[in-house]
């Protein structure tokens, strides 16, 4: 009995360790929203990634950089513009066209002059600001975080980002909101110092310097999907999840093969074990 208790407890420790790290905050728990990329068989929907890229491109990228992303990534396997007929992203016309829309700072190799040239698939996504000081100056002192791995850098990243984007609310009466700040119940924070109402009922959440970025029909989706705020948020979260973990599908597919292999191997080794030990009393 004792041994079983210990075994169960050890298993519990292993499984709960990750959860134990989450700490208590005053913000509202993220909304429950399901994404197609979740779960062991989840995959990215290419049409959704394309819509998400459009939201990033037309809305987010005016303030947020994605320094780890290159244009070629858009055309790699499981990416938004992957084309099985052109597996090399450098041959992908969408990738080339998207890259060419940008002007990239460079140095003329003949003269050494600073020039601008059209982007190529090898170029990184250009940053909206030349440096951090410029980014802060343009955003009331706040620094828009880089979005490359943002989804992995937040607890329940996809749900959290979706909740922020769709969770803006009118500040409750009695909450003092400074200019350039916006109330959002899903942002971690402590509003007690800004709250003039009942001290036992401080509103959840905190302030964020980003104005509500998404408007209904703020972008026009090429595939005819209605661009509600929820739809835009869902699509851009899918895109950001892909950007944070571009090898996710490859990982899950590899994992399925590895699991099948290990289960068969376990069966074979267990059968060998039973056979080798069959004449030993133990």
């Amino acid at each position: 009995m004792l041994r079983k208790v210990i075994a169960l407890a050890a298993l519990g420790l292993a499984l709960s360790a990750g959860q134990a790290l989450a700490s208590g905050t005053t913000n509202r728990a993220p909304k429950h929203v399901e994404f197609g990329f979740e779960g062991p068989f989840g995959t990215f929907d290419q049409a959704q990634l394309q819509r998400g890229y459009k939201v990033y491109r037309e809305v987010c990228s005016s303030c947020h950089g994605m320094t780890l992303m290159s244009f070629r990534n858009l055309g790699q396997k499981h990416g938004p513009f992957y084309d099985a007929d052109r597996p090399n992203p450098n041959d992908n016309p969408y990738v080339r066209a998207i890259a060419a829309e940008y002007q990239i700072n460079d140095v003329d190799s003949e003269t050494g002059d600073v020039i601008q040239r059209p982007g190529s698939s090898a170029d990184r996504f250009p940053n909206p600001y030349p440096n951090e000081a410029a980014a802060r100056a343009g955003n009331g002192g706040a620094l828009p975080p880089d979005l490359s791995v943002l989804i992995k850098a937040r607890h329940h990243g996809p749900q959290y980002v979706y909740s922020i984007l769709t969770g803006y609310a009118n500040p409750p009466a009695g909450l003092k909101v400074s200019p350039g700040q916006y109330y959002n119940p899903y942002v971690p924070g402590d509003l007690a110092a800004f709250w003039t109402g009942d001290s036992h009922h401080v509103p959840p959440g905190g302030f964020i310097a980003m104005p509500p970025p998404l408007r209904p029909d703020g972008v026009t989706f090429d595939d005819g999907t209605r661009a509600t705020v929820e739809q835009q948020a869902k699509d851009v979260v899918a895109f950001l999840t892909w950007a944070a973990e571009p090898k996710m599908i490859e990982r899950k597919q590899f994992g399925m093969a590895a699991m099948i292999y290990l289960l068969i191997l376990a069966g074979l080794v267990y059968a060998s074990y039973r056979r080798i030990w069959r004449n030993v009393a133990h």
Partner: protein
Amino acid sequence: MAGHHPTYEPKTGFERWLDLRLPIVRMAYETAVAFPTPKNLNYWWTFGGILATMLVVQLATGIVLAMHYVPHVDHAFNSVERIMRDVNYGWLVRYMHANGASMFFIAVYIHIFRNLYYGSYKAPREILWIIGCLIYLAMMATAFMGYVLPWGQMSFHGAVVITNLLGALPVVGEAITTWLWGGFAVDNPTLNRFFSLHYLLPFVIAGLVALHIWALHVPGNNNPTGVNVKSVEDTVPFHPYYTVKDGFAIVIFFIMFAGFVFYGPNLLGHPDNYIPANPLVTPAHIVPEWYFLPFYAILRAVPDKLGGVLLMFGAIGVLFVLPWLDTSKVRSMRYRPTARWYFLIFFITCLVLGWCGAKLPDDPVIPNLSTFILGDSDLNSYVWLSRIATAYYFAYFVIILPVLGLTETPLPVPESISAPVLSHPAAAPAGAAAAPESRG
């Protein structure tokens, strides 16, 4: 079958020639094939083999990662992400290495608790146990420095918190900290030396593992009864009996490992470590990796910094003298009806300490309940729960085990390993010695 033990006989001319000059094949044969092993080892004994396998996994993946990683404060974070994105199967190698560290600690903790329950540290295995404690220490140092290398927010601020602890030591503390940092703050020199040491220490561990196995092969394995091997009837050759049993356990362990690597690769990590290190922004809640949480709780249980540091190191130090603290002549707790319950409480205490280590010290354990302020904090707080658990942790080693060995009446211990084995699973005859497993 069980009584027959193979011996090494060189078969070819070359093997006979080599055997007279460097009997390395003979040594390998006697270590991994012929080695007589008690036939009653249960699955708790497979974690030695699992640990050896995990060490190989960590070395192999780590060497590949080092080919691509850049140990510089400006490039470390992005070089890790480059491994994830642009290196062929880099995501696999990196996730195996990061989760492999956690798997290594799961296995080592089970290995240590198995040891504590079955009294494997007792004579004549004290040196074996002490080498094991040294391996555990080296593992902790390696894991800590490895976690710093991605240079995320938790890497950086964890390194600041832990290295600052040494500053609490009187007289030499500040000098040691400066020397460790290679400057006056955690910065590029710190990252460089941590990378160097993170590469070095695993090979130190490998050397210690060789000594650990050597020290194991002199007295041989302990076993669930704790009774010494009396005759060849009690043993089977290591190969194929335990290669296949360990092999099965390793495959099962790898299924769990693969579950984390492929389906929850970031579950055991902290999201803040995907934010590049920024010395000017301190995370709201700095927590170490899960395997350090019990020690973190002990550290924070003491209001005085130096006292906390000493107690934290003492929690590991006390393990080194355990063979001389436990006064009981009976090894296995199967035959120690009282000690068994204290052991269970000890195990739960370690889990509670880990839980406390993940929480803010002043937060209430039971939500929305304030009792009364005791000393510096409400009694219903994690800091007081940590204190109670810390007190039991040390009491178990320095009070309970020494006293219990003298006062407890153990159950009758079987004559030999074969005695209970041969009567099992026949209807239990009178006499406790006959079927001790059923009482476990």
